[in-house]
């Protein structure tokens, strides 16, 4: 039997609490994520996809329900503590890297994700050879720009770096929030291929929000659809392989 890695049980999350504008963004949401799942997340705007990520990440506190990691309740743990098991890549390339710090410095920061930071020297130079090899796997010239401030990189390079930073120290759960959406089609495809490759290789447990139906079908072993704060559709394995964009479109037409 596969043990669930991350479980969301009856999760309720409201905004504008106790005001007339109160809205329930996550409505008794249930989701069980197994180790090694690569889940693509679909849903229209306002369905609660980003809120789901923010609830898992701890940026938003939930009103009721439970979030369990390996059976342990983490619903009230801080954002900082959750980074021990969790890594994220945001949609906006600006959010993922520190613009005035160079590529190597950003990697060094990411390598200590969730760990204590002490007054010990950072020893950046010792890591440069290793970082050069790691960045070379992205095939986009990052390895030649290790000492360039990330603010001077292209959006594609920055987003590739953000992804690299998220996976440098193996996360138990990886959240990708439309991480290729802000890039041009070619760069976006390159990063998508690379993402898939890395997730497969390292057998990462990953949730990926996307608006590309093709991407949602091509990648991952499981596909879920969020609607009005609930998981309304959840397929995996052969059932997912049998899905087509037409079937998905007709499903969306049904629920709207």
């Amino acid at each position, binding site marked *: 039997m596969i043990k669930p890695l991350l479980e969301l049980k009856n999760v309720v999350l409201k905004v504008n609490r106790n005001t007339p504008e109160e809205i329930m963004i996550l409505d008794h949401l249930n989701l069980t994520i197994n180790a090694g799942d690569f889940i693509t997340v679909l849903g229209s705007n306002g369905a609660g996809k980003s809120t789901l990520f923010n609830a898992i*990440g701890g940026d938003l506190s939930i009103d009721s329900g439970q979030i369990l990691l390996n059976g342990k309740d983490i619903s009230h743990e801080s*954002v*900082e*503590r959750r*980074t*021990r098991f969790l*890594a*994220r890549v*945001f949609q906006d390339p*600006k*959010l*993922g*890297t*520190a*613009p*005035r*710090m160079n590529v190597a*410095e950003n990697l*060094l*920061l*990411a390598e*200590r*994700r*969730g*760990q204590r*930071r*002490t*007054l*010990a*020297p*950072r020893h*950046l130079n010792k890591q440069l050879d290793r970082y050069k090899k790691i960045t070379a796997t992205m095939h986009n010239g990052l390895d030649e720009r290790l000492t360039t401030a990330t603010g001077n990189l292209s959006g594609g390079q920055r987003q590739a770096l953000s992804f690299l*930073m998220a996976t440098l120290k193996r996360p138990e759960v990886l959240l990708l929030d439309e991480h290729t959406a802000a890039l041009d089609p070619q760069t976006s495809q390159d990063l998508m291929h690379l993402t898939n490759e890395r997730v497969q290789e390292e057998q990462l447990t990953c949730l990926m929000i996307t608006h590309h139906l093709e991407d949602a079908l091509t990648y991952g072993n499981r596909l879920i659809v969020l609607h009005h704060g609930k998981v309304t559709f959840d397929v995996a394995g052969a059932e997912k392989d049998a899905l087509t964009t037409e079937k998905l479109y007709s499903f969306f037409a049904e629920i709207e």
Partner: protein
Amino acid sequence: MSLIVSAIGQGLLWAVLGVGLFLTFRILDFADMTVEGTFPLGAATAVAAISNGMNPLLATLLAFAIGAIAGLITGLLYTKGHIPILLAGILVMTACYSVNLRIMGRANVSLLGKSTLFKNHFLASLPQYFDSVFLGTLVMVIITGLVIYFLQTQLGQGFIATGDNQTMARSLGINTDNMKIMGLMVSNGMIAFGGALVAQNNGYADVNMGIGIIVIALASIIIGEVAFGDLTLNQRLVAVSLGSILYRFVLLIVLKLGFSANDLNLLSSIILALCMMLPVFKKTFNFKHILKRGLDTND
């Protein structure tokens, strides 16, 4: 000659403020008004402690600690109380005014006849004004060295990341609230330390000596950057000391031109404003282009 030596000495003593403010203004990327209160707070603390017989070195270190507490309060108001940083700083700055009067008992306390860091055999044996040059250099080498070391540690890198990209810092497990509080504490500790040094050098503490401090500290940062151009982070920290000395030279020239000491705050603000607008001027007037045209007669 002695005027120049005096300016260098003053520049070095006041440079502590620039490095202190650098931590918040340049690294955490906000303007901390608390410093207008912590500078006289440090001066008051040191002067009161020395008047009560405390060793001047201990009194100066005590000033650092008290300044750090003021920074802690601003930090808590800002991060836990969600008060905007500008207002949080102004609140603590205003509160410091009363605290300083309490500490000193009156608006102005002299150190006449009391022992200070400047009154020892070695410093007294130096030619006039060289005591502040010597002490200032010593202090700046130590403080700049410590800050440079800190910024290259794992914690220091997390501190820089907090000011650079808060969302990323948090997503990597950096407690950004603690980083801001720490930055405000160290920064204000250093400003208070500077206040203690200046008070001992002047021979008195005055409750109004904090007015315009943020402008003076900013001036040393900005003048250093404008004068030396593209620098690494470590070089920029050293440039603060040089900027502080240059600022004293500018003041010296201004006084020579016939302005009175009462005009200094106005002039300091004008100098700082001009320096900060330099990038705008460069764009508007296209200096380089004009320069090229002027040199190239064929064009």
